[in-house]
């Protein structure tokens, strides 16, 4: 069985959404920040629990809030990633509202919270901040740069789509 699933990455600009997809789909990374205008769509096949998933990943341009995103981009989404940058507080200071918006407007659609650029705070006391706040309880931390945890977060979201 081949299942086509639409995955959308949301979050502020510059948090590394494009880099996460590039790491996951092409196993590549670039330090340069190139802004995403509009949407890029990539495809990758993954097998989870003997099921083949055809992931169609929507790399949406960054916005300070989901409300500002073009609503048509979110139509028919099967799973969301909400990505923030662990080194830039402005990208996670309104998390509660953002996640509430997702839950209210896309009920039943699974999402995963991702704290990207974790390599920047490795061996850093600011890690404590994320362990102390309840909102980060189910957050997954990734580094598109090192590749750490990237594959895992995609697979974990897909397994929620089963």
């Amino acid at each position, binding site marked *: 069985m081949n299942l086509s699933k639409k995955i959308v990455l949301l979050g502020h600009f510059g948090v590394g959404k494009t880099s996460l997809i590039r790491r996951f789909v092409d196993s590549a990374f670039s330090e340069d920040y190139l802004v995403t*205008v509009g949407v890029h*769509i990539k495809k990758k096949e993954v097998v989870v629990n003997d099921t083949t998933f055809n992931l*169609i990943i929507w790399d949406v341009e*960054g916005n300070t809030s989901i409300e500002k995103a*073009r609503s048509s981009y979110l*139509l*028919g989404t099967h799973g969301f990633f909400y990505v923030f940058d662990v080194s*830039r507080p402005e990208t996670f200071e309104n998390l509660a509202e953002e996640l509430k918006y997702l839950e209210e407007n896309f009920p039943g659609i699974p999402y995963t919270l991702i704290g990207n650029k974790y390599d920047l705070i490795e061996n850093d006391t600011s890690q404590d901040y994320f362990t102390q706040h309840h909102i980060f309880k189910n957050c997954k931390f990734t580094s598109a740069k090192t590749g750490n945890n990237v594959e895992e977060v995609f697979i974990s979201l897909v397994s929620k789509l089963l």
Partner: protein
Amino acid sequence: MIEKIKNLIYNKKLQVIQLDKNGLVVDTENTVFNIKKNTKLTDLHPFFESIAPLFETLIEPIEFACVNLEIDNKEIIADINLIQEKGNLFITISDFTEHYEYSHPLVQDKNEAIIEKYKLAFERDLLFEKEKFKNTFLANINHEIRNPLNNLLGFMDILTEDKQLSYNQKETLNIMQKTGSHLKVLMDDMLDISKIEKGEIEVKHIPFNVRPLVKNLLKHFTSKFSNKPIETDLEIDENVPNRILGDPTRLNQILFNLINNAFLYTDTGNIKIKLDCNDKKVIDGKSFINFSISDTGKGFSKESIDTIFESYHQLQLKKIHPLGQGLGLKIVKELITVLHGDITVKSLEGKGTTFKFTLPFEVAKKTTGKKSVPKGSGILVSKRILIIEDKEVEQMLFMKLFLNNDKAYQIEIVKTPEQSLELLEQKKYDLIIMKMVFPSKNGLQVLKDITSHNNEKINSTPVLMVSGNAVLSEQEKILSAGAKDFLPKPFTKKELFSKLGEILKQ
């Protein structure tokens, strides 16, 4: 004709594709992409694959703006519309690549600028936090040191009154006292810096005469450094007003530090102090007095001149006896800023230094009237003071301070706040002296227990709070909680008795 022109421009940028419900191309133009009939659109690009589930339920048109597509090695950025018309499904692809690519660098710049803006703000906040931490740390450590220092200075004070001391012992004691007082000055300096940086500095606005203030300071230093062959010259222009409104304590502190510096760094030559007032420049009713302190001393090197006003820089300078000179220049700079003035320094290594600063002052109006002389019966009525102190060393210090005092103050000491309340019920006291921290209770709570006591005899007894925490906010807290007055540690016997005199006179 118009239609023709329109078609000429837009036709090549617009492609309309008709689909059946399964996504099979029924009809199409080939203006943007070369698409064949009867092919599956969903196979051309994952975008179409992911919107395919919308085909069946489509009623209202849906617009997908700014979609990046790559088909057969051709990359475009398009607005794509999904339209249902009389049961037929249409997809339009409008190629806006040029338009979107043009805006790309603008968005890139905008986003980068925003990221940078937040980054700078974050770094600024971090610095503020660090500065706040430093100031709190300084204030706390200051507090911790003040208590033992108070005991040291207090007991040394008492020891000077001992007539049995030998010459050698007196000399030793003298040095110990000087060292202790120096330590106190350093503690005050440190606290001043942290107060200024926390914005807690209190600026007075009272009338005073600047002439005697400067003369006395110069006299003090000339006598202190009488062993150095230095000539002094004081020039106060007659246009400097006699009585001005401002903060004499802070002005004194500024001049003290600058004149002290001049004497310290000058081994021979002269020190010149000049004051004048630009009487033509008056802003908001304020005149500006220019002060200049120049010496023929060692001077500062080019490298160090930029940093002499910086925080704690003197602690790092090994050449000029770290710590020895206090934290003077930093305080000078900060105080002048607080007083809305400015300071400049010119220096040549080996030749000398000139500090110039300008401060705004209001000219005080002349007041007439006789000074009132307090009247009294001349008979000394002994006053009873209750002291709440749990530490033995401090108890002993109080006992010694009040021993044979010529004001005939009688003291009683209790160890705990609870005992004090018992005694207050039984006897009438003229004053209570207490501190801020007890093992069983916070001083503020004890204070409230006294001032809000239902027995008027107790709640009307004035309380003098003695604390090592000299931070302004702490003082305000204490005074608003009902204390009559506040005495910061370390204090001398003279300071304590002068404070008692003030309170008990009322």
